[in-house]
């Protein structure tokens, strides 16, 4: 565990990092970004917390069971969205035209409209959830592991 200054600053900064990561996830269909990129930003925040506090402390907050369930939920939402259009074809973008993310933008340059894209922003959320849970579990497991502890089932 590092000094009190580092711990306090880390506790304050994690909020901004999470907000920035969520911004990158949500705007994935109009600016560079998306599920994996935003998730990786948030995981870098988790790594900052891991460096400030040690891994035993962090294990009490990020329990392994919670991360497992979050990861499976993200993947299941993604597959459920893919199956939703199976009436036509798998992965069919059935939200085009509906009020949820359904506006069709004009072809060519223009200001980005966040309410476009159909199923794609929802899939970005699901992938972001999965990446956060998965990569945090990997980082936490490696930190605990090199400290000498085994993470059992």
């Amino acid at each position, binding site marked *: 565990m590092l000094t009190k200054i580092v711990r306090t600053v880390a506790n304050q900064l994690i909020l901004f990092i999470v907000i920035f990561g969520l911004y990158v996830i949500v705007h994935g269909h109009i600016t560079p970004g998306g599920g994996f990129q935003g998730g990786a930003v948030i995981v870098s925040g988790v790594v900052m917390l891991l460096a400030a506090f040690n891994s035993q402390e962090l294990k009490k907050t990020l329990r392994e069971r919670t991360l497992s369930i979050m990861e499976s939920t993200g993947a299941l939402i993604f597959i459920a969205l893919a199956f939703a259009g199976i009436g036509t*074809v798998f992965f069919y973008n059935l939200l085009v035209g509906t009020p949820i993310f359904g506006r069709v933008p004009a072809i060519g340059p223009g200001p980005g409209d966040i309410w476009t894209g159909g199923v794609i922003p929802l899939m970005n959320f699901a992938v972001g959830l999965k990446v956060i849970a998965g990569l945090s579990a990997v980082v936490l497991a490696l930190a605990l592991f090199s400290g000498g502890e085994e993470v059992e089932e």
Partner: protein
Amino acid sequence: MAALITHSPILIIAIPLLAAFLTLPIGMASRKARNVLVMVSLVFVAFLVFALARDVGINGIHVYTLGAASPDLSIPTGFMVPVRIILEVDGMSVFFSIIWVIVSLAAAIYSFSHIASETGQNRFFTLLLLMVTGGFGLMFTGDLFNLFVFLEIASISGAALIAFRTKFADTQEGGFKYIVVSAIASLMVLFAIGLLYAQYNSLNIATLAQLIQYTALDKIALALLLIAFAMKTGMVPLHLWFPDAYSVAPASITGMLVITSHACMYAAFRICFTMYGGVINAPVVGWIIIIFGLLTMFVGVTMAVFQKDVMRFMSYHAISQLGYMWVGVGVGLAVLGNPALLATYGRDAMSGGIFHILNHAMYKPLLFFTGGALFHRTGTRDLTKMGGLAHKMKWTTILYIIGTLSISGIPPLNGFSSKILIYESVYQFHPILTITGIIVSILTLASFTKAFHSAFMGAELPEYKEVKEVPRSMIIGMVILAAGIVFVTLFPSLIVDWIIHPAADALIDQGAYINAVTGAIP
């Protein structure tokens, strides 16, 4: 029912993926529910695979476009080239997917008891189902980049499963070697994909088959792709990781790794025959494949003769049998440009190689499963320490005998049918190939008999007095594969007419593959 068959290519890929991620929450609740989920999903996928196989046999190549307005709309109005991710299922894909689903089902049922005493079983089944997804995606995909992605999915899950038993050091070493080889092979494939995309601006295999000219960069891409897939199937001289990875994995995973090697052979055939089919320098590439195939056959069996570890011994034999398949299909490739020779013996050589893939996928996982059964009950893989196990483990002994007779090519079992097809057709190409094949076959029989004698025959040893037969689910897993062997033994010409010849024709006939995607009218 017709709708189910129309959507079946993507359902076959998506249902194991769905089941993989459902396994974790359901497994945390109840163990039996998880086992039921795994088995039900694989049985349903098996039903879909056979329905799709019958449909492809009747109606021809099956194309599925993800995300379009209708499943076969590969070129929408106003576009000149196919867009979107396209799955294309022809005779060859269907053949490999039949093998894949049967062995996956047997491996999953075998694993119910084999890893019952280990921790982390939920993750095991998640990874197993992910590996199944990766394999199906590899076989059904119609564009190169999806080939890369599904290859990586199968490789990463496979490596994690090899290193599943974390208490031992040698499993970690085997898994590490597997993931290093897979990573290097996949990065080479990605480099080749980049080279091809840069020239032709398309990733679709059918479009590339139309546009490809044999420039210098294309030759480099072909060399990279073939070397990468040869590395993954264990062709000599790139085979050094193969016995290490196969000997330490849990036995059901070794069975899955065998068919992963076959899937990488499928990818190599798809590239050589379908993508480069019209422009490839067939005699040169064919001869290179034949020479390395001969080397593989020979090195595999000679290294196997003095092994003491039973799984390592069987994995060297797997290397040598893979050489037979390369030789058979290599002869077909070498005469690809010559229609007269192709009709005389080229098609038969390819059919022999492909039939050998089917037989190998039946008897090799069976032999690995029996090796795993020996490990499960005696706790050791060392043949010198085992002895006299035939008294107690009767089922395992009988299944091992069936596997041995198959691999050595003893008539009337299925190994003989495919080997005689290979011998007769490659003899007309060049006699030395047949002679080497027969010598390797004799050495195979000799080494397997020695191993049988060492493990099963002899007096009962005192330390194995309370050894019983293996649990029922392991026997059911092995019996599924043995039933496949018996079926192919009894009806070889049926199998050849219905499955093997369509697969060989699908490889030779490049035009039908291209027309299915680019000539498709909504």
